[in-house]
């Protein structure tokens, strides 16, 4: 860390400090002189600010200075009544965040009710979700994922910082398939975690394959 160019560091600091929005690593790199080592600079800068009242925080691939969260109680001056998201919108947001990429039908499967109009678009208007590719299943439905603005808003560095995500994964609860598909073929709770672990991290096509495989297994 000693070989950090102090001028580069000051420049990066000034660029980040002057922007209200978190900036992508790509934009930052474009703004720095040729040869500046952005990753090292970012880590060094974050380090230097770690005990300040302002922190350098990462949200996905974006970075920005944000006031330290431990000062929240002291900074919250105008206690304007925050715009409440509906319960449906909060649930939908958490399902998209934890299960992403996830289709509308899967969100409905998990919630057990149809998504009413105005739920997804509230989240879209907030800039918290975005469409992300299509599922390779009949109808090729759009899948939804969260944005970096979502991470930034909730002070998350990355999706793996979502509260409790590891536990939920381990418990097999992050599986958006219809429940009976998960259980139809196998029974016994001990196998559930294994099945879920299998499906996680795989592409959608793979999930389908697994389901078919399980079905075969059952047919034996």
């Amino acid at each position: 860390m000693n070989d950090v160019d102090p001028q580069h560091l000051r420049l990066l600091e000034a660029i980040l400090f002057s922007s209200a929005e978190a900036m992508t690593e790509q934009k930052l790199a474009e703004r720095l002189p040729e040869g500046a080592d952005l990753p090292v600079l970012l880590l060094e800068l974050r380090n230097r600010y770690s005990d300040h009242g302002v922190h350098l925080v990462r949200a996905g691939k974006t970075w920005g200075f944000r006031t330290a969260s431990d000062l929240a109680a002291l900074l919250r001056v105008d206690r304007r009544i925050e715009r409440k998201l509906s319960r449906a919108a909060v649930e939908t947001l958490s399902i998209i965040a934890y299960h992403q990429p996830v289709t509308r039908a899967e969100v409905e499967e998990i919630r057990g009710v149809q998504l009413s109009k105005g739920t997804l678009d509230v989240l879209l208007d907030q800039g918290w979700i975005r469409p992300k590719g299509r599922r390779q299943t009949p109808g090729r439905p759009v899948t939804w994922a969260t944005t970096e603005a979502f991470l930034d808003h909730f002070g998350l560095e990355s999706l793996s910082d979502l509260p409790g995500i590891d536990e939920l994964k381990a418990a097999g609860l992050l599986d958006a398939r219809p429940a009976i598909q998960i259980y139809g073929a196998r029974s016994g709770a001990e196998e559930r975690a294994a099945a879920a672990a299998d499906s996680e991290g795989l592409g959608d096509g793979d999930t389908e394959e697994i389901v078919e495989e399980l079905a075969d297994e059952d047919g034996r």
Partner: protein
Amino acid sequence: MIDGFDDTDQHAGESPMTAFVVDIDGYEGPLDILLSLARDQKVDLTQISVLQLADQYLAFVAEARRLDLELAAEYLVMAAWLAYLKSRLLLPEPPGAEEPSGEAMAAALTFQLERLEAMREAGQHLMARNQLGQDFFARGQPERFGGNTLTVLQVDLSELLRAYGAHLQRRQGAQPLRIEPHDLHSVEDALKRLRKNLGHAPSWESLWRYLPPGTFEGLREGRLSARSALAATFAASLELAKGGGVRLRQNKPFGPIYLRAPQAGNSENEEGGP
């Protein structure tokens, strides 16, 4: 509603059924109700008795029907499924059954409840976090610098998609328009009716008397056809008056409108009015 869920003690002491029937509007579908019933049963959802849960739900549906509450179809579908599940759980498995066992179905239901509850809790944890612009803040006075200018167009994905949606809408509206036959009243019809009936009305009569039969009831019910009858008759009366076919009178703004045939009585008497 979410508070209602957090507070598991809320329903304690009273029959869960009464609580649910009272609250039915607050629930988002059968799964939501099942989750509440399950939570009343046990804190740990993996330990709930699905058989008991099915009974509770069926009792709830029965109670709702007894009270003549209108239940959406999905509630009844769930009831039917749970009744089936119950029978599968109670009867021995038929040998060589192709479909999932009763136990698998029960496990699937438990899983569904667990998963929904997990997401609900996750959402609450998320919203409980410090939030940007509320608990922690970005730079309050972003700086702009001199020199080269970089024009940045401000438009986000949501706006782009809405613009396309608005376009589709207009295009849809511009497609060949198929107008269904309707029973709205036309000005032409009203003209005919007025001409025909005016002869029998030598004195000032309310416009109301010239409306087609049933208009009064129709207006009370807010029916479109009645409104169109009123509008058409009024427009027809103006049209007739323009050609001297009828005399109109209104004593005050928004007051009742009267009309009569012009040839009735001599012209000086007209001022008498009703």
